[in-house]
């Protein structure tokens, strides 16, 4: 996928989030000097070709009561990675599933990373156990790395907004302060049945 200068400007304007105004794409179009329809069409293309994985509300798990998250790392033999990773990725509670290199020289032997969220540590561990059982991964070496403190969470800024000298940028709050895990904000959750992909 080749991104031209206009794409880069578009990404620079949208990466921090869409404005909460009636016509957010028109606002972006104005800053880019193109038509609103062009912005919408281009975003649709970027979505259709997979450059944009999804577009919508980006929730903050911890604030929504999902206080525990474990990055589970797996050491999976090369010939089984694709098959196992695809299955792990399909579980509902798994939000990321990436293959990464091993680094034996730095005592790092894991090659697959998946993120599991839950309301507390016990539920995350239960889900992990379910995955291991259902996929029969008992012979695989894995480890959950729980997060204990969040120092920063915000969207990626792939393009430096200052690179393009347009007018104001949408600026949205980022969690840059230290957040201990025991902060108390409990919310009850809807038990809605969403399209399942797990």
């Amino acid at each position: 996928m080749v991104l031209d200068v206009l794409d880069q400007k578009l990404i620079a304007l949208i990466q921090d989030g869409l404005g909460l105004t009636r016509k957010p794409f028109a606002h972006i179009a104005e800053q880019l000097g193109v038509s609103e329809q062009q912005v919408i069409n281009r975003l649709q293309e970027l979505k259709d070709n997979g450059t944009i994985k999804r577009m919508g509300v980006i929730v903050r798990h911890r604030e929504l009561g999902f206080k525990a998250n474990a990055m589970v790392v797996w050491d999976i033999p090369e010939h089984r990675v694709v098959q196992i990773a695809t299955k792990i990725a399909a579980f509902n509670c798994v939000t990321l599933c990436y293959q990464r290199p091993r680094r034996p020289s730095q005592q790092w032997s894991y090659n697959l990373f998946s993120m599991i969220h839950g309301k507390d540590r016990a539920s995350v561990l239960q889900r992990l156990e379910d995955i291991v059982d259902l996929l029969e991964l008992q012979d695989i070496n894995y480890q959950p790395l729980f997060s204990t403190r969040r120092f920063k969470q915000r969207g990626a800024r792939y393009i430096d907004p200052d690179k393009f000298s347009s007018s104001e940028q949408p600026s949205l709050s980022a969690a840059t302060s230290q957040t201990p895990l025991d902060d108390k904000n409990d919310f009850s959750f809807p038990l809605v049945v969403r399209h399942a992909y797990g």
Partner: protein
Amino acid sequence: MLTQLEKQLLNNYQQGMPLVSEPYAEIAKELNLKGFAVTEQEVIDCLSQLQDKGLISRIGPVFKPKSVGGSTLAALSVPPERMDEVAEIVNSFEQVNHNYEREHQYNLWFVVATGSQNEVFQVLAEIEQQTGLKVLNLPMEQDYHIDLGFPLWC
């Protein structure tokens, strides 16, 4: 407690933001069809409040890794007594967007996302220099997950 409208927006609009001129009016229309009597302005206000409350970080796109610019996941093995200091150094880089302490010998994990792979290397080199710690650099090789957002009932 979350209102019904908040729940709807949080759970059902993590993907599929309407790509139309007036997306919030479209959302209101969709919700009306499902039996929620809301106006465009109420949708905008509700999203804006969710943002103020810190329950959503933004409304926008999630890009496929490596499709735009460069990024990596990196880790440091930080002596416990230096954790605050080192976390602050890592946080100070604009190119770092996630930074978490985790339970492992490698106890500080962060994501560097920026315009190019070259710049990623530069940031990692600077972090090594400023912290005196060796970075474990683990760029993504393959993405197996189809991102449909996070089911809140999960």
